[in-house]
């Protein structure tokens, strides 16, 4: 099956620092998305980004579908950015898409 590699696995930042998270896929996927899981376990969709670049406040994401990778940029990090960041891509299944998740990047932002 498709392998999804996220790097780095762990990241500690001082508040205000910038960071780049990476997601590599072993094969082509559809519907690439980034999620944030907060310390209470809630998963929030950050970006739906099958290709190109999007920005939302201090966060932006870029997907290069032809090279099978995506990047998530966090600028001016805040303690509320702490948590685990997951990327996910989809392959066609019966009737809809099936999603494959990476193992995540655990981010801790220190005040």
């Amino acid at each position, binding site marked *: *099956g498709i392998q*999804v590699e996220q790097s780095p696995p762990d990241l500690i930042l001082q508040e205000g620092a910038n960071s780049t998270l990476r997601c590599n896929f072993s094969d082509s996927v*559809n*519907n690439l*998305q980034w*999620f944030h899981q907060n310390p209470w*376990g*809630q*998963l*929030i*969709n950050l970006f*739906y980004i*099958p290709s190109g670049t999007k920005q939302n406040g201090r966060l932006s994401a870029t997907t290069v579908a032809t090279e099978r990778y995506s990047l998530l940029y966090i600028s001016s990090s805040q303690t509320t950015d702490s948590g685990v960041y*997951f990327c*996910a891509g*989809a392959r066609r*299944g*019966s*009737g*809809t*898409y*099936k*999603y*494959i*998740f*990476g*193992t*995540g990047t655990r981010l801790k932002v220190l005040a």
Partner: protein
Amino acid sequence: DAGITQSPRHKVTETGTPVTLRCHQTENHRYMYWYRQDPGHGLRLIHYSYGVKDTDKGEVSDGYSVSRSKTEDFLLTLESATSSQTSVYFCATSSQNIQYFGAGTRLSVL
């Protein structure tokens, strides 16, 4: 946020007992999913549904069954729980290719 409610939120059960987890959504989304989350594995797809009574297996479906008799409800059943099924279970819906997650159910099988 899509209105997705998982119940129960926490459950402790014994090996060999049947367990049913419920996912209820109020958004009328056609597609629904069950995942499990374990340390070191991220989220792994158990089963999914592409319509009422239409379901299929994901990558870790052994020991699990699902049912969807109404658009709003997607049930996950562990016929005979095992300790390896101790995990956090997430339900998700999908609309316009974007996934929305419930708050999760923490299941412990002793």
